[in-house]
């Protein structure tokens, strides 16, 4: 089968339509590699691990944010449209500058701020069925791919909303009993750039390639971290 692929190019004169022979199973990353090897050696796109761990191959596949490595072509696919992730400046072709995502991520102090006497000591004793872990565990394994940020109707403009990934991380840290920066983070998420900016469009939850639910994390933050039942 032949697939007709339309790829957004930054050079308006560069070829943008390609016919690719498909094989199965074939991911969108495989399609991009085929174009690069057979048609357009300098086609720009980013990837590293190809197993949904690095979170660097985020693009729009037929308009929806996705990891290229995790998007398998349907066997009867005949057309495909690939665009750079929305909400980020384009560096070249499908490569974007994810600085806006990281700026918001950095604002929530994304690391645990431990008590001075905890550093280098024994790891905290926290049972897996504790309330703390039951709140945190479903929100872990974020790979910072930016798909949620890119799919959020609000995070893109103007660039002050903390956005779903940073808020999800804030929820994790606020629940983490090892952390001492809870008050600062609570103030930030309750402030002008925090949870009240969310309109519950659920673009984030719908696009997370790891199955996380940032919208739920935002609801929980609104209720001060308590479960929304």
């Amino acid at each position, binding site marked *: 089968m032949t697939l007709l692929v339309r790829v957004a190019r930054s050079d308006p004169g560069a070829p943008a339509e390609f016919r690719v022979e498909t*094989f*199965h*199973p*074939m*991911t969108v*990353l*495989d399609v991009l*590699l085929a174009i*690069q*090897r057979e048609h357009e*050696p*300098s*086609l*720009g*796109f*980013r*990837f*590293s*691990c*190809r*197993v*949904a*761990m*690095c979170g*660097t191959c985020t693009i729009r596949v037929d308009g929806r944010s996705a990891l290229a*490595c*995790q998007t*398998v072509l349907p066997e009867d696919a005949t057309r495909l449209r690939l665009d750079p992730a929305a909400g980020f400046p384009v*560096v*070249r*072709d499908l*490569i974007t500058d994810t600085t806006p995502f990281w700026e918001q*991520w*950095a604002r929530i102090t*994304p*690391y*645990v701020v*431990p008590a001075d006497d*905890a*550093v*280098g*000591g*024994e*790891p*905290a*004793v*926290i*049972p*897996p*069925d504790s309330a703390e*872990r039951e709140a*945190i565990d479903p929100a*872990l*394994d*974020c*790979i*910072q791919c930016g798909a949620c940020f890119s799919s959020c109707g609000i995070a893109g403009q103007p660039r002050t909303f903390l956005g779903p990934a940073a808020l999800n991380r804030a929820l994790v840290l606020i629940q*983490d009993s*090892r*952390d001492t920066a809870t008050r600062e983070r609570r103030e930030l998420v309750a402030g002008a750039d925090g949870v009240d900016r969310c309109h519950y469009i659920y673009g984030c939850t719908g696009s997370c390639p790891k199955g996380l639910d940032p919208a739920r994390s935002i609801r929980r933050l609104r209720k001060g971290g308590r479960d929304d039942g």
Partner: protein
Amino acid sequence: MTADTPDYEEIVTDVAIVGSGGAGLMCALHCHEADPGLDITVISKGAVGRSGCTRMVQGGFNAVLDPGDSVDAHFRDTLAGGKYLNDQDLAWTLVNDAPGVIRELETRVGCFFDRRPDGRIKQKAFAGQSFDRTVHRGDLTGIEIMSRLRDQMLRIAARELEDVRALDLVFDAAGRLAGLTCLEVQTGRFLLVRARVVVVATGGAATMYRIAAPAREKTGDGVAMCLRAGLPVRDMEMLQFHPTGLLTGRSRMTGAVLEEGLRGAGAHLYNARGERYMERYDPERMERSTRDVVSRASYTEIVEGRGTEAGGVFIDISHLGAEWVERTFKGMVERTRLFGGDLARRPVEVSPTAHFHMGGVLIDTDCRTDVPGLLVAGEDAGGVHGANRLGGNGVAESTVFGARAGDTAARLARERVHGDADPNAVGESFSRATAPLRSAGGELPYPLTAELKDLMWQSCGVVRRRDRLEDARERLAELADRAARLSVPGPVAFNPAWQESLDLVNQLTVARVIVESALARDETRGAHARSDFPDSGDDGDLHYIVATPAGEDVPRLTTRPVEYGRLRPQEAAS
């Protein structure tokens, strides 16, 4: 600088760290903690903290935490797994430092590993170990470690040169290390990074095989750079094949690892006839045998016609119950379902996959090399794992030795001065890098990469023999000639074809040393199997192979006796 040297920007830093995986970022963190006044620069070919293989760690991290376990037991397991070829001081350092690094990852870096019901860190079973000592976060441990280390970079505010490829180490007129040349991938601009100390931590080169596990970036850049600078390397024939790489046809996903914990938990391996073939290779340990033994067994089944049509065997864990498998190995189950398989309910087709390079640059326990001011840590270094690495000792090595490199770098940075890089060497480095852009009518790199992968898989793979290796030696020389004449179309900014041609040169540099070393080891040991020398030599009289670069020629090989300073193999058996 020569007349045709391209323009470049100069960056002056105290410590330049090449690589942003577990070793690179632990190094940056330790260097900062040891001396917060130091200017630290992290140079990363891909996204910082999100390229390379620590991020891809699934199973976990071996460390002695339980009072019932001991560092001596971990040491003995590591040596037995390494078939006694290990540098015992490095292996001893690994097992002694690992528990402290786990505590640091938890209490300083903010990682949170899985807990037992009593709230203490849980440790699971991995192959080749006498105690369940593998610390993990589900079956996607690397995401937790690297995401949190990446967050630490925001705290310590190290300079990040992201999407910047390190090209060559450069020296001053007196031969003292002065820094390194780099290429900014996003713009095509060149950089000269002047540093008091350089730490090389780029990761290995297993991507040179047709079926391979690692991330795209791992093209032997660090080892190739060190070889070009004349540094000796050891154990280069020791390239580990992980037994359970996914087979997904022509998809790039092929070769991605299904984690070791599956075998640790009791998964079975079957050939296409439904035979549990490990009974014939290691009846005592069965599937929980070490990676070298299991990979060789699977490979033998496949080449002797008992594999699947696609050239694989099956791993099956469904007998432990779909619900339990889904909960325990969520990431692995998802990985198989993406392609229509279902690890929780059915056997899944797998093949040995090129995974990890035990060989690398000679270092001491403080990560120092033969070049003052140059440190090497993680997979770029050789000796820790000997002839075969235990699952769970990889991320332990990266973080333990990354941390030590950071401590050493902080100390050395206060003793060393900035040198003036030899302008001719700087010019030559940039000129070599731009060659594919300047030449016309040559080949593109992509077909050559594919040829290299096929050649290494067929001729220097799981099982090797002299005639094939000699053929590989000749064909690699031809490939190197062709790689020197590549041409790629523009632009200079973020041009994957240009970048791949630079990767290819590094892969070929490393591949040639692997093949030479494989020819030199006339025995089967660990990951190095020779069908023409199926037996192992005497464990008590082992030598390791050191390759020393000799200009443009293939490196000169010498052997050195393994020092059994802490444990003699005959004592281990008792």
